[in-house]
């Protein structure tokens, strides 16, 4: 470690704990409390990356989230590597490995640097103007463009880390733990409000906490000492929660805020195991106090991007907080007083301050006088016109500004410096305020946008420097006054506070500082990461891009990972100056969430892998698993798809299951069907209105199939409904439709038909449904329920009986979706597993065969029964399905009825459901295949498509259902199914393939 760059005077770094880390493969050391950036600087490493477009060498420029350059790849493990991490934010930990990005082969020698030489022909928007010849070549150019763009590298393996979420509710949320945030939190807790204070650092106090200056005092103590005591006092309040290492990411409407807490990123790798890495806090606050501070602005001058050019306030933080000298011979370049604080800190720490170049004519504020007392040389009214040093600043040249600031005059003065601190004033961080919908006002004396308190969208205020107060007395006094008013607090412990500080006496601002060279020969960078310069902005304006959004998009200014935190104000200023408009009228670009980039994993939390989506299971699920079922996802349900035996393929299993069901007995878990219990004196009338057919005359104990339409007349859902008693029905819906049907029916009941005395209660999970079909189904039921009279007279098809199995109530429905004689047992779910097993035992002698959804689909297709969602697609009326019989002609109205009589829904050439047989009975059509009559006609006219298709073991041939234009009239007609490799000949048939006379229902 280069000890000469480390001073040993501060409380914030633990210099007794040495931490080793690697940068670009080189082993280095830092101390506990360092950031990667401070540790690199202590090792005299400034060059950390290459810029996006020109691949220019870039160094650490800031000490916070606004860092545009020092962006590194962390780690090399393919699962845990992380791209685009700001070196200024990451806390140093044992074993940290970091790499420079966007350079090849290395940051010191980067082939992409050639772009810098080509930069004259790569102005803003150059790619819109070229790469168009030859026409087919764009993708080839694009390949190279893509590879030279991008910053870090994505991981290539799944992330092993854990993330989670936590909701929190509070009276007051304070964002930012600097002096104004700490004061705000103290006032809120004194009022007795439940308060959360969040700060992105590991240590509260912001920039005041290392502000150890005689010139700024609070109640006669140095401001840092006063603040330290205040922070200590916060610990006594039970109604305050302090979340450090937590950065506010987004401020949504209704005071809903998202904040990311980093829980393990500062720990050494072996300490992280089985811990949540990051937690997303979802906070609802009654009131929000934003104390997010401000960011120092750079100055825009020629070649202002060299490694070693650092924001002045960051240099101060590195020396005062981290004890790191950013250079041995430092110069400062400023337009305001804050650089003088840096100069004084440096000087006191024994660092040579070469010169302060100040564009102002003079200043007589206390802090300037103090600097002068220390013997620091100040060059008033000057600007830097050139900097030298490719990978690290070596020297610079300054010249005097002309009286209007538009030019430089006189001789160049050259200074040697290994670091320049720049300060262009301060930008309030109003991002969160505007994200929440707040409007800004422009304050022209400071050239800043601050919240317009008359246009605040929710219960919130901004305090401190994010509200435009930059001097300690204003910050403290205004924060106290405004927060007390905001939370209606009359008296507080701060009421007699006394603050003194140096006051700035002179201001001057030039957005684009002149050089002795013509502008086009200079490189005054605005957006350091995206390599856009002041020239680019001016070019965009010349080309007619007037709006700030146009300029931003054309030049990519403000589109980097820092989201324009450093560049937006200068871009606006240059536009205003160039076009002669007032900055306040231009307005800002939109600040979009998140305020700081948010890891996808954090946003998703625990809802990954097994928690991605729910898995709904029936009460018989474990039996299916034990019996090797393959499952199909139907909505969130897991349904047995088929039950392969002894290595059967799906086809073999389904053929076996289908035959068994028709020849003897099959058993199906149909529990996933939606079930709605309907009670009330108007239940029958209600069913009349929701189904297309009539219900009033359905006898008690009988079942009926119903079709439900959308109001636009298209088939929506179907199922069997049973009349349990005079005013009591149970309706079944499709599995996927259950929730929607219930909610739609509730909607009609509550909003359109409140006069109906009907109550709906879902019982989908209350009852499990076991369906047993086949000629032996009766024998099996007989064994399970010996005392139930199963004769066709007593218990005919489409009827139901209340019964008991082993003393447990159940409902037996004699309904059939296979065309076979069959029963459905509906039993309380907690008994279903045992009833299923009892059925299996009872059916053993009849070779009872469990079957899944695939066999169910095959068996019903043999009978021509539709499946809504498979044979229908939301564009078919009952008539299109050849189900005119189910539309009651007598009923005055039902949902969707009117739509059936529109000019295009009564057309006879609509697509209609038909059966299909292939000329080659072995040929099974592909579901989704299209049907045509004349294959040679161009363009091909498609008449319809295959909706369901199977090989029927019971008919020994391929069968299919299809939707065909004018299909009703086309029975017997030959059509072609054109596949990629061949054409298949088919004939249109009736939709019922098996047992057309329905004899088997009573077999």
């Amino acid at each position, binding site marked *: 470690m280069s000890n000469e760059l480390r001073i040993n005077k501060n409380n914030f770094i633990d210099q007794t704990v040495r931490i080793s880390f690697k940068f670009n493969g080189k082993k280095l050391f830092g101390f506990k409390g360092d950031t990667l950036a401070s540790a690199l600087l202590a090792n005299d490493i400034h060059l950390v990356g290459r810029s996006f477009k020109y691949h220019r060498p870039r160094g650490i420029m800031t000490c916070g989230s606004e860092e545009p350059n020092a962006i590194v790849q962390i780690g090399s493990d393919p699962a845990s590597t992380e791209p685009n991490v700001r070196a200024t934010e990451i806390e140093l930990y044992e074993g940290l490995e970091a790499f420079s990005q966007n350079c090849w082969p290395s940051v010191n020698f980067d082939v992409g640097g050639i772009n810098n030489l080509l930069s004259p022909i790569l102005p803003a928007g150059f790619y819109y103007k070229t790469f168009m010849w030859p026409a087919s070549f764009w993708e080839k150019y694009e390949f190279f463009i893509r590879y030279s763009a991008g910053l870090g590298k994505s991981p290539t393996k799944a992330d092993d880390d854990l993330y989670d979420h*936590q909701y929190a509710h509070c009276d007051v949320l304070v964002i930012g733990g600097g002096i104004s945030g700490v004061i705000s939190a103290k006032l809120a807790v004194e009022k007795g409000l439940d308060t959360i204070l969040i700060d992105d650092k590991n240590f509260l106090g912001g920039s005041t906490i290392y502000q150890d200056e005689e010139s700024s005092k609070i109640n006669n103590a140095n401001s840092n000492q006063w603040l330290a005591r205040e922070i200590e006092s916060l610990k006594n309040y039970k109604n305050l929660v302090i979340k450090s290492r937590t950065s506010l990411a987004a401020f949504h409407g209704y005071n809903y805020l998202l904040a990311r807490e980093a829980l393990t990123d500062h720990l050494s790798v072996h300490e992280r195991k089985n811990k949540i890495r990051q937690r997303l806090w979802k906070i609802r606050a009654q009131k929000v106090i934003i104390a997010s501070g401000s960011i120092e602005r750079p100055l825009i001058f020629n070649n202002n991007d060299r490694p070693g050019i650092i924001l002045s306030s960051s240099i101060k933080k590195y020396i005062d907080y981290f004890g790191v000298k950013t250079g041995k011979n430092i110069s400062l370049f400023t337009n305001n007083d804050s650089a003088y604080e840096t100069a004084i800190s440096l000087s006191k720490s024994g660092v040579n301050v070469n010169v302060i170049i100040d564009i102002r004519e003079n200043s007589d504020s206390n802090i300037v006088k103090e600097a002068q007392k220390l013997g620091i040389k100040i060059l008033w009214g000057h600007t830097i016109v050139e900097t030298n040093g490719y990978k690290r600043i070596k020297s610079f040249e300054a010249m005097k500004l002309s009286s209007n600031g538009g030019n430089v005059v006189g001789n160049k003065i050259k200074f040697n410096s290994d670091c320049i601190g720049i300060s262009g004033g301060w930008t309030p961080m109003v991002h969160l305020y505007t994200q929440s919908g707040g409007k800004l006002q422009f304050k022209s004396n400071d050239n800043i946008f601050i919240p317009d308190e008359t246009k605040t969208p929710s219960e919130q205020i901004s305090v401190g420097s994010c509200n435009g107060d930059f001097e300690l007395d204003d910050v403290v006094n205004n924060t106290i006054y405004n927060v007390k008013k905001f939370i209606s607090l009359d008296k507080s412990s701060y009421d007699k506070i006394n603050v003194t500080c140096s006051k700035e006496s002179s201001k001057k601002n030039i957005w684009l500082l002149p050089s002795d060279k013509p502008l086009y020969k200079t490189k005054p960078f605005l957006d350091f990461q995206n390599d856009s310069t002041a020239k680019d902005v001016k070019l965009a304006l010349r080309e007619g891009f007037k709006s700030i959004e146009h300029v931003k998009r054309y030049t990519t200014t403000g589109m980097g990972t820092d989201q324009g935190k450093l560049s937006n104000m200068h871009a606006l200023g240059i536009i205003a100056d160039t076009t002669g408009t007032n900055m306040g009228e231009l307005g800002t670009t939109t600040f979009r969430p998140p305020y700081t980039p948010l890891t996808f994993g954090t946003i998703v939390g625990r809802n990954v892998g097994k928690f991605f989506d729910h898995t709904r299971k029936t009460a018989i699920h474990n039996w299916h698993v034990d019996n090797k079922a393959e499952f199909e996802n139907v909505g969130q349900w897991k349904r047995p798809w088929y039950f392969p035996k002894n290595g059967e393929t799906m086809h073999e299993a389904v053929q076996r299951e289908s035959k068994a069901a028709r020849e003897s007995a099959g058993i199906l878990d149909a529990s996933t069907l939606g079930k709605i219990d309907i009670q009330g004196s108007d239940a029958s009338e209600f069913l009349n209105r929701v189904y297309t057919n009539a219900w009033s005359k359905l006898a008690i104990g009988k079942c009926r199939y119903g079709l439900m339409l959308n109001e636009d007349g298209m088939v929506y859902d179907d199922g069997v409904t049973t009349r349990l008693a005079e005013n009591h029905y149970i309706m079944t819906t499709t599995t996927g439709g259950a929730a929607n049907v219930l909610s739609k029916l509730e909607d009609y009941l509550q909003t359109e038909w409140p006069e109906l005395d009907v109550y709906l209660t879902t019982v989908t999970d209350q009852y499990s449904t076991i369906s047993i079909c086949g000629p032996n189904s009766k024998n099996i039921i007989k064994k399970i329920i010996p005392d139930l009279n199963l004769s066709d007279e007593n218990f005919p098809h489409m009827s139901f009986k209340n019964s008991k199995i082993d003393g447990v*109530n159940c409902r037996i429905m004699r309904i059939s979706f296979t065309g076979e004689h069959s029963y459905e047992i509906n039993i309380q779910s907690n*008994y279903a597993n045992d009833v299923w097993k009892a059925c299996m035992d009872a059916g053993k002698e009849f070779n009872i065969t469990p079957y899944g959804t695939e066999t169910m689909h095959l068996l019903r297709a043999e009978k021509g029964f539709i499946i809504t969602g498979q044979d229908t697609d939301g564009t078919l009326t009952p008539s299109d399905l050849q189900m005119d019989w189910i539309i009651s002609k007598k009923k005055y109205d039902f949902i969707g009825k009117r739509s059936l009589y529109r000019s295009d829904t009564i057309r006879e050439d609509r697509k209609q459901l038909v059966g299909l047989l292939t000329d080659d009975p072995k040929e099974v059509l592909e579901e989704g295949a299209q049907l045509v009559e004349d294959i040679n006609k161009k363009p091909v006219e498609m008449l319809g498509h295959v909706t369901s298709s199977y090989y029927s073991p019971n008919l020994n041939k391929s069968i299919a259902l299809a939707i065909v234009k004018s299909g009703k009239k086309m029975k017997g007609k030959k059509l072609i199914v054109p596949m990629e490799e061949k054409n298949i000949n088919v004939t249109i048939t009736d939709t019922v393939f098996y047992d057309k006379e329905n004899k088997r229902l009573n077999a």
Partner: protein
Amino acid sequence: MLNFNSPIQNEKKYNEIKITELEPTIKINLRSNKREFSTKIGKILSILPPTEANTSSGNENYSLLWLSPDEWLVYSKNKNQNFKDQIELEKKLFNEISKINQGAVTNVSDHWVLFNLKGNKIYDLLTKSCPFDFNEFKKKKGSVLQTIVNHIDVIIHNNENNDLNLFVRRSFSEDLWLWINDSASFL
């Protein structure tokens, strides 16, 4: 003999939190907007259905939860109540309310699975995925909440300080159980 197979049948303990699937109890859903309904219920259960939103009423045998202006859930607290009682109660309610068009009575004993959560951190656990502000809820014994936990519909009944019952639909119960256990292990 048919066995009663509730889905979880388990109890887990974590740092300051205990999660149990309660033994199955009677749960009956009640719907009505009729005037006499309340009196009828009072007669049968010896408790009146609460009219105030998000509250419950109860005695030593039953809790009666408000679900909406015309919907309540009654569940038995008495573990020893057997299957027969369940049928008896359902029958009685059905005959005296539904049959005479005074509302609807639906047995939902197996529709809902009942979890009990106890301990200092149960609200920290729920708020990992539930946006509800429990500040008032947890102070008020007997309060009732219908909301979502990890995107699953639940009914939550505050038994007493840091002790609550949570109803979840049977088909989602295993999934929610997994999530609760996972989250509890990180508290």
